[in-house]
C-alpha cells in the first residue's frame, strides 16, 4: 500500500513537472507579448521584418539595431522623407551587438525577408565586441545552426552554446530576461528604479588606432556585405549620433564605406546640444531624435534615389 502511494506520488510529481513546463512554454509564447510592451513590440517588428518583400513599386528599407536605433530614429519622420515608392521599417532589439545582428540579418534573409536595403545601426564598440544578447537573440534572430555558430564566435563555453540552442527552440528559455522583468515588476516594489541601478556603465571604447581592432571591423563589414550580396540586398551602416563626432566613429564609418557599405554619407558633422541626449549622453532624447531624423531622412532619400535611379 505504502509503495503504491509512493509510486503515485512519484508519477504525480513527474506529470506536474511536465505540465508546469508546458504551461510555462505556452505562456511565454502567447502571454508574454501581451504583458510585456517590449516583447510585444519585438514580436510585431520581427514579423514585419520577416515578411518584407520589395517590388519595383514598393521599395523597402529595413533598419535594424538596438536601443540606439530606438532612441534616435523616428520612423514617421524617416518615411515622410522617403522617395516615392519607398517605405522604411525598423527592427529593434535592445542590448544587441554585431554578432546578434550578423546572424540576425542572416536569419531574416534565410526566412525570406527581401528588403532592397538593409541598414545596420551600431556604435563602434558594439561593432567590435563579441558580446551576444544570448538566448534572447537565439530565440528571436538566429536559426538553430547559427545559434551554435554565434556561440562559438562569441567564445561561449559548450554549456552556454547548448543554452543558445535551447533558447532558439523554447520561448520560456529564450525569453527569460523578459519573463523575469515582467515578474519583477509585479513582485518587487520600484522594480524599474532597481533595474536602472543595476544597469552599470558602458565601459571604455576600443582603441581604434590599434590595427587589430581595424582588422576586426574590416572582416565584419566584409562578411556582412558578402551575406547581403548573396541575397541581392544592399547593406549600409548607420553610425549613431554622438554628442561630438569621435575618432572611432569616423574610423568605423570610413572602414564601412571602403568595404562596400555606405556609411560616410550618414555621418553628420553638425554638433548636437546637451538637450539632444539623455542623461547617459549615449541615447538620444525625443528632441535629439527629432533633429537626427530630420537629417537622416533626407540623407537616406538622396542616397536611395542615387543608388536606385
Amino acid at each position, binding site marked *: 500500500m505504502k509503495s503504491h502511494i509512493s509510486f503515485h506520488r*512519484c508519477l504525480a510529481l513527474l506529470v506536474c513537472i511536465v505540465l508546469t513546463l508546458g504551461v510555462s512554454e505556452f505562456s511565454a509564447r502567447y502571454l508574454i507579448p501581451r504583458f510585456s510592451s517590449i516583447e510585444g513590440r519585438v514580436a510585431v517588428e520581427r514579423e514585419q521584418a520577416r515578411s518584407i518583400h520589395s517590388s519595383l513599386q514598393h521599395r523597402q528599407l529595413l533598419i535594424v539595431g538596438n536601443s540606439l536605433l530606438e532612441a534616435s530614429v523616428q520612423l514617421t519622420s524617416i518615411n515622410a522623407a522617403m522617395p516615392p515608392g519607398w517605405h522604411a521599417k525598423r527592427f529593434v532589439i535592445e542590448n544587441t551587438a554585431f554578432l546578434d545582428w550578423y546572424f540576425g540579418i542572416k536569419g531574416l534573409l534565410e526566412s525570406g525577408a527581401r528588403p532592397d536595403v538593409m541598414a545596420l545601426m551600431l556604435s563602434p564598440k558594439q561593432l567590435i565586441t563579441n558580446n551576444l544578447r544570448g538566448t534572447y537573440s537565439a530565440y528571436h534572430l538566429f536559426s538553430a545552426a547559427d545559434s551554435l555558430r554565434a556561440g562559438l564566435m562569441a567564445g561561449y563555453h559548450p554549456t552556454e552554446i547548448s543554452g543558445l540552442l*535551447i533558447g532558439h527552440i523554447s520561448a520560456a528559455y529564450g525569453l527569460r530576461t523578459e519573463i523575469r522583468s515582467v515578474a519583477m515588476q509585479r513582485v*518587487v*516594489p520600484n522594480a524599474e528604479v532597481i533595474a536602472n541601478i*543595476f544597469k552599470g556603465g558602458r565601459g571604455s571604447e576600443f582603441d581604434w588606432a590599434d590595427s587589430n581592432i581595424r582588422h576586426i571591423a574590416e572582416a565584419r563589414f566584409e562578411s556582412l556585405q558578402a551575406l547581403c550580396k548573396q541575397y541581392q540586398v544592399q547593406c549600409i551602416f548607420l553610425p549613431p549620433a554622438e554628442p561630438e563626432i569621435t575618432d572611432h566613429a569616423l574610423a568605423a564609418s570610413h572602414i564601412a564605406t571602403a568595404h562596400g557599405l555606405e556609411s560616410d554619407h550618414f555621418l553628420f558633422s553638425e554638433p548636437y546640444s546637451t538637450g539632444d541626449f539623455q542623461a547617459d549622453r549615449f541615447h538620444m532624447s525625443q528632441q535629439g531624435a527629432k533633429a537626427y531624423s530630420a537629417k537622416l531622412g533626407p540623407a537616406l532619400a538622396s542616397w536611395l534615389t542615387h543608388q536606385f535611379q
Partner: protein
Amino acid sequence: MFFDTPIYFIFLLAIVSAYWTLRHRGQNILLLAGSYFFYGWWDWRFLALMAGSTLADFLFAKHISSSTSASKRKLALGLSIGLNLAFLGYFKYFNFFADSLHTLLSSLGFEVSQRVLEIILPPGISFYTFQAIAYMVDVYSGRIRPSNNLIEYALFISFFPHLIAGPIQRPDHLLPQVEQPRRLDATQFSNGLMLILTGLFRKCVIADQCALIANAAFSGTLGPTNIGTVALGAYAFAWQIYGDFSGYSNIARGSAQLFGFHFMVNFKQPYLSTSIRDFWRRWHISLSSWLRDYLYVPLGGNRHGEQKTYRNLFLTMLIGGLWHGANWTFVLWGALHGAWLAVERFFDFDSDRVQHGIAKQWFKRFIIFHLVCLAWVFFRAPTMGAAASFLGGLTTWNISENFYPLFLMLSVFSIPMFGLDLLENRRSEEFLTEKSSTVIQVVFGAVLLFAVVLFSANSSAAFIYFQF
C-alpha cells in the same frame, strides 16, 4: 555543465533513463562514463589528472591494506596524501604563495622578479582531493577495507552529482552504496525530484536575485560606501551564498537519489544557529565534519588541554578558510571563525546544559547571524583592502536613496527563504512538504518550478562553490 542549465537536465534524464535498464555492474560503468563525460564537458584537459590520481590512490590503498610493514603502510599513506596535496597545492596555491612571497620580499627591500604562471584550476579538485584523502586515512586506520574494484573506486571519487562542489562524501557512507546493487525506490525517487526543485528555487530565485544586490554593493555601483551599503552587501551576500550553495547541494543530493544513492545532508538551516559552533554543525556539514575528523582530531582535538584545544580550533578553521580559495581574505574569514570558536569555548557560550527561553534564543540567533555576515564580507571581497574599505562604510551614517528600494527587494527574496528554513526546522524535514500529502507536495513542487521559470536569470550566474 551548471546544475541550473537545461543541458544538465537533458544529460541527467538520458543517464537516469538508461541507468534503470541496466544491472549493477552496467549501472556503475554507465555512471562512471557519464561522470567522466560530465567532467570533460567542464574541461577535458584535466580528465587525465583525475584519472591518474584516482588510479594512484587505488593502488596506494591496496598496498596499505596488504602490507604488513607499519613503516611501508605509513609511507604509502604519506605518499598518497602528499601527492594529492601536491596537485592541489600546485594548481590552487602556487601563484598565491609566489605572489605573497614576492610582496613580502619586496617590502623587505629585496628585488625579486615575479614569475606568475598561467595555471588553470581543475574543476572540483578541492572536493575530490579531500574525498580521496578521507578514503586513504580510513583505509589506513582500518575503518574501511580498500576497494578491490577500480571502477567502483573511480565512481566513488568521480560520481558527477558531487564531483564539482560536494557534498564531500565519507568513504564508509558512499562506497558501500556503490558496491551494493541499488533498487528503484519510488519514495527516494520522488524525494530526489523535490530536492532538485527546492535546490533550483534556492539558486535561481533566491541566490541569483540577492547576487544582483550584493554585486552592486561590493562593486561601488551604489556610490560611496555607507552603513546602508554595508548592510545591503553583507545581508545580500549572506542569502546569496546560502541560497547558492544549499541550492547546489540539494540538486546534487536529489540527482544522486534518482540513481538510488543517498548523500549526506549538507545544510540544516544555518542562519538559525545560536552559536558559532552550532553554525558549523549546520553549514557545509560535509566539510566541517571532514575538518573535524581529518584535521582537528589528528591535531589533538580537545584531548591535550585548553590551550591546545584553542590552537587546534583556530588552525583547523584557518586551513578551512584557505581551502576555500587562494586569497588572504579567505584565510582571515577562517581565522575569524576559529577565533570565535575559541572564545565561545573559553566562555562556555554554547553549553548544552543551559536551557534558553525563546527571547534569548532569538537574541543569540540575531548576534550569530551578524557575526557570520561580518565574516562573509571578507569571504566576498576580492582583497583585504577592498574588505576594509567596504567595512569602513559603517562609520558613514548617510544612507543613499538607493538603499530603500534595494532593501525592499532583498526582503522580498530573503524572507521566503527564511520562512522556509523556519518551517523545515520546526518540522524536521529535509525539504518543506517532505512529510505532507501527495497533493500538497505536488502543488508545492509546481509553485517552486513556476517560480524558477519566472525568475531564472538570462545568463547562468555560476554557483559560488564551483570556483573552489
